[in-house]
């Protein structure tokens, strides 16, 4: 596995270990402390494109979460 893939795995594992479901970008970067924030951003966005992470936004702030089954449906039905 390339170091890039390993770093992505670190981010996902870090998220799975947390109690909270939504995380700020700064917090996600803690999972890969050796990387610059700009490098981490590229990986995090790749994870979003691959469907392994999901944006959540209040309109003023953006956070990241792990995708679950039927997220959009649950949100629309007021279950989250």
């Amino acid at each position, binding site marked *: 596995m390339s170091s890039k893939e390993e770093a992505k795995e670190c981010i996902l594992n870090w998220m799975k270990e947390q109690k909270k479901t939504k995380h*700020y970008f700064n917090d996600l970067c803690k999972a890969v402390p050796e990387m610059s*924030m700009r490098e981490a951003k590229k990986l995090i966005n790749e994870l979003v494109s691959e469907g392994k992470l999901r944006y959540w936004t209040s*309109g*003023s702030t953006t956070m990241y979460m792990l995708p679950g089954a039927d997220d959009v449906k649950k949100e629309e039905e007021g279950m989250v």
Partner: protein
Amino acid sequence: MALKHKTPMLYELTKGPWPSFVEDIKRLAERKPQCDDLLGQLELSYKDKEGHWKHGGIVGVFGYGGGVIGRYSDRPDLFPNVAHFHTMRVNQPASKFYTTDVLRKLCDMWEEKGSGLFNLHGSTGDIILLGTTTDQLEPIFYELTHELGMDLGGSGSNLRTPEGCVGRARCEWSCLDTQDIVYELTMTYQDELHRPMFPYKFKFKVSGCPNDCVAAIARADCSIIGTWRDKIRIDQEAVRAYVGGELVPHGGADGSEKRPLDIQAEVIDKCPTKCMEWDGKNLKIWDEDCTRCMHCINVMPRALRPGEDVGATILVGAKAPILEGAQLSSVVIPFMKMEPPYEEFHEFVGKMWDFWMEHGKNRERLGELIQRLGMREFLKAVELKPDPRMINTPRYNPYIFYDPADVPGGWSRDAKAYRERHQP
């Protein structure tokens, strides 16, 4: 057609002398059931004295982390047509120049795929499309980008859509090509606009002159305000014409009647730095003391004009009163030429963002970070030297603390001996 919901409290809002948004929505409600339920929910909010919207969510378009804000009714049982009522932000063209063709297409698209309601414009400058459902988000995005040549704007922890005044397109005072700067910022920072990575929002606003028509100094994390570094251009004949009552002062803004201008009371005495003098025939300006307040130019636009050696003052740190109180921007670069390809400015932006991303707390604006760590730390990070022009009253406000290592010869200080003479 009778509407579904009775809205007596909203009706009160239609009684004033000005056009009412309630009347506008009612007109649309006759053919759009979302608007009928929207009025019903607003009436309920007035009755309950609390809002009934749930704000935020995961909805968006593929690949973008901004531009769509999820919105849901918390009473879908009563108002099913606004159960999902998402907002979309559309990146407005620089200085908001539209063709009527694009506006018609936008209206048609939104009538078909959304509620038919939109704001021109939100305080960020974007067009705000109000109210659609999740399944329509991708089709709307496709039509915006493929048929209308438009894109979504910024929201969340992104760079927000850059905004500028009308600039040289219609304003004789503009010292900058504001449209070119807005376009340059928008295109260069596409990734920052659509894919969030900042601690919080970040706004660029560009004003062509110190009149600051987009209020960049009050709203933007980085304000770019046009200025000049040579002398105000004076047409003495025109000054005498204002005094003699041959020209209308203030460009007609306070009445279109010609009247003699009391130049002493209306111009000279109102100059904040008292850098002007009128001897009855000629106006003299000591430009080295001018702070670019624009008052004299605004009063006598035919007689006075900004200088010819134009550029921008760069300021940072403004914000509205959310979390911490409101702040105005502080000057960090008194003068920059701001000409394509804007390399000097881009270099500054890169350093500024690196500093903010590294040290900013979650939901901390750049201005709040500077307030917390100090302007000295910011200036170090962006590799700028302190300058008296960064300070409002340099002789009375020692805003910058110098580091002994930065001053030739340095100095030493015995803190213990100082404390023996001064109590903490």
